[in-house]
């Protein structure tokens, strides 16, 4: 079982794409220590049968069209966009800090 999250930042800096894979027993999504909600200490059992986490961050890859007559960056990646929309949810009312 796999959990996938795709997010983007519209900040105009150099391109960045990070893909992380975490397997059961190595679950630490960030340097901050994470605890199992079940209180299992360091033996980590992910919920819902999840074994792997894939988190992809896009930089300056737009979902919204910059020009109404030109498909956006994500519209030009139909395999990825269709995967998300057909198997989960794409939330486009998402917001970031002013930058």
């Amino acid at each position, binding site marked *: *079982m*796999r*959990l*996938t*999250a*795709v*997010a*983007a*930042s*519209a*900040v*105009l800096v150099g391109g960045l794409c990070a893909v992380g894979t975490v397997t059961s027993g190595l*679950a630490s*999504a*960030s340097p*901050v*220590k*994470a*605890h*199992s*909600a*079940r209180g299992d200490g360091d033996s*980590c*059992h*992910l*919920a*819902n*049968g*999840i074994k792997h*986490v894939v*988190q992809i961050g896009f930089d300056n890859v737009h*979902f*919204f*069209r*910059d020009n*109404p007559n030109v*498909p*956006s960056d*994500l*519209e030009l990646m139909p395999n990825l966009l269709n*995967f*998300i*929309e*057909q*198997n*989960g*949810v*794409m*939330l*486009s*009312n*998402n*917001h*970031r*800090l*002013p*930058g």
Partner: protein
Amino acid sequence: MVNADPARTPTLAMFANPDYYLQTGSTSCTASGVGTSYKSPNCVYQTDSYAWDHGDYAAEVNSNYVGFVGPGVKHLGLDGPAANQGPDSAGANSGLTVVSDYHLPGPWVDETDIRPTMMYLLGLRDDYEHDGRVITQILSYPNFALSQPGVTALGECYKQLNSSVGEFAADTLQADTNAIESNTAGDSEYLRVDAQLRGLEVARDQLAGQIKGELEDAAFRDKPIFGTAQQTGACQALIKAASALSNSTSS
């Protein structure tokens, strides 16, 4: 911009028009007129060699997306504005609009919500309190506390109260901007607005901090939230107060 170290809190934060770029310049620049180079004596200059279109407190720049796929995530498809319905910088003033004016469809989400939502779906919890909330609208199996009536509505209001580009933030920023631009004897207008902003800030911090803790406990400890309707009412009242203050100032 405000963290645990008060020495790092800026005295003045500037947000320019979307196609403006702010940078440090000469303290003796000329306020009137537009120059052609950053070396010009004018405080403002234009150049055709570089286009900046990613500033600042503007709807297009502050709008983004996040997708979730996996066990525990509802199959909702696109839940928000379509690709051709988002804010853009076309038209007058280069997209000088704020997100909260658009009333976009779909759950209002901030990037701070991604981490707690991921952790919830994984059945993990951090050893600190998140600023964001678990996006309850996308959960296939919310726990008992999150599935109680009024919890999602409280979370939605919390977003508008605490998001940096939500209604409360936009209205207080507008009020403060108008106050700074005012020119009344003894700075009376500025002082009036500043005092009210301080009152709103204290009230916001108290209520948002309370709601944040309750949402965290509901998500990660399955602790029910009591008085959701009353708290949502208080939250909405604060947002209305910020709007009223903004409307009482002149831009």
